[in-house]
């Protein structure tokens, strides 16, 4: 069933991204990498990663991309109610991680923000690389300050931080072998590059995927990855890199609402 939440605060982070802090009526047990299905009555319901959690407060970072996210940006305000169900899915590995690297693209930083705070509590050493298109897209880098040992910020045009793609961090800025694990979330082509490189270097890597989600609980079949038949909502959204490399769809195909596959480039851009 749904848990009812009330919006405590909405922060405009960039012109496309807002953060919603929601107070829910009961405590929920969550782990970083899990998502919630968020329902705006008479508008729709979408999956959102938990970007931060404290007691009965949940934070969501929402990029304006379409109908529901558009409504959230344009019409929701403090005090409004929404209903959420979840948490759903399998999150990131938390155990036996002494040192990790996080590579995020755009709002992909959402689950990694929550993850970084959780790992910090466990004493993990954390390095973070955040990538954005340009200066105006940069947000929340400071939220990693207290938990990460290093924070690299990349912009494609160099208008802020380091110029270049965030994936370059693996190749130029760190010694990948120093990390027990690399976590990544962002545009799928970016994640594809990260996963491929990490595995080539023999470093464990986990990525959080997105697909169209209807049920969110593993029965409708709209989020299936071929050819392993994995469900992003239930078996993911976080997958191990080794598994992802066996998935033809990864980095290549997305499924539309009707279930047909389309090449990922045509729809996916950060």
């Amino acid at each position, binding site marked *: *069933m*749904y848990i*009812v939440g009330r919006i405590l605060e909405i922060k405009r982070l960039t012109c496309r991204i807002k953060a919603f802090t929601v107070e829910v009526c009961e405590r929920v047990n969550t782990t970083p990498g899990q998502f919630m*299905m968020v*329902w705006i*009555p*008479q508008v*729709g*319901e*979408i999956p959102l990663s938990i970007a931060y959690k404290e007691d009965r407060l949940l934070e969501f970072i929402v990029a304006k991309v379409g109908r529901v996210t558009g409504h959230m940006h344009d019409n929701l305000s403090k005090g409004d*109610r*929404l*209903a959420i*169900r979840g948490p759903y899915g399998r999150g990131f590995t938390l155990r036996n991680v002494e040192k990790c690297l996080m590579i995020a693209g755009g709002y992909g930083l959402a689950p990694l923000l929550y993850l970084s705070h959780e790992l910090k509590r466990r004493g993990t050493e954390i390095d973070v690389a955040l990538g954005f298109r340009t200066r105006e897209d940069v947000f929340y880098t400071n939220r990693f300050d207290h938990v990460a040992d290093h924070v690299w910020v990349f912009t494609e045009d160099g208008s802020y931080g380091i110029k270049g793609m965030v994936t370059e961090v693996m190749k130029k800025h760190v010694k990948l072998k120093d990390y027990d694990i690399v976590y990544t979330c962002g545009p799928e082509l970016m994640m594809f590059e990260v996963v491929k490189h990490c595995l080539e270097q023999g470093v464990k890597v986990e990525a959080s995927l997105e697909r169209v*989600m*209807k*049920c*969110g*609980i*593993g*029965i*409708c*079949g*709209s989020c*299936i*990855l*071929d*050819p*392993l*038949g*994995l*469900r992003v909502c239930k078996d993911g959204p976080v997958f191990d890199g080794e598994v992802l490399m066996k998935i033809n769809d990864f980095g290549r195909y997305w499924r*539309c*609402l*009707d*279930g*047909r596959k389309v090449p990922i480039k045509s729809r996916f851009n950060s």
Partner: protein
Amino acid sequence: MVGSSSLSIELSGLSLRNPLILASGILGTTFSIMKRIEAEGVGAITTKSITREPRDGYPNPVVVELEYGLVNAIGLSNPGIEYFVHEIKLAKRLLKIPLIVSVAGGEIEDIVYVSRRAADAGADAIELNLSCPHVRGMGMELGTDPIMVKEVVESVRKRVSKPLFVKLSPNVTSIVEIGEAAADGGADVLVAINTVKAMVIDVYLKKPILSNRYGGLSGPAIHPIAVRCVYELYENLGDEVEIVGVGGVETWRDAIELILAGASAVGIGTAIVRRGLKVFREIIQGMAHYLEEEGFSSIDEVVGLAHRR
């Protein structure tokens, strides 16, 4: 596995290693998940219901989880038969168990077309899901009018020689009347039941949760309704057709109950949410154990036993 041989059945000429069937609409969307579910031990797979044209389905929310079941209104989202033919072919190449393709539509000619395409692509059986609003029926469900049901089934029967399953809705005054019409039309197997029309309203947001407002109740809540429907169908039509019992099966007991009521095989849907994919193996083991304990040599002997005086 303990006594697993005795679980195998023949269903309208199809050989199933055990009587469990993946119900339509639950995960049967791609060859890859079908393969995975086959590995979990299921006896046969039903695909999601396929229409002539692709359908996005209803916008989210499309499912509400309750304590004792689900209410869903996915809205027959599917890629359309043109695309799905490839999925069927891939599945047939990879699967060793029978593949039942579920077909839906609001017009007879569409239903016949999709059925033929599916059969040609290699489907081992066709299942007609008649719970679509019928275009000519002015919004009424095709499956609620015995005359229309007979007509649809007959039309498909004429053009498809594969075993023909008809899925029945419990949202009718007499499921036997509809079952009879399907049998008269030439159905080999009746599948009972589809979901029960229902609604969930959020008391704080004060709106029906599903975007379609109305949805279908499945899971444990409807199990005693499914048992009743299967029992009624077997009592009245047991000599003419075989029955697949579906509705709220979560344990081997639930499955056996439907078989005692008259089902030759048992569909599993919502249980996957609550018990995971391992539910197939659990039920199979439980049924095998039951057969031994109760001294049956084959699951066939259990079919319809609750009718014996």
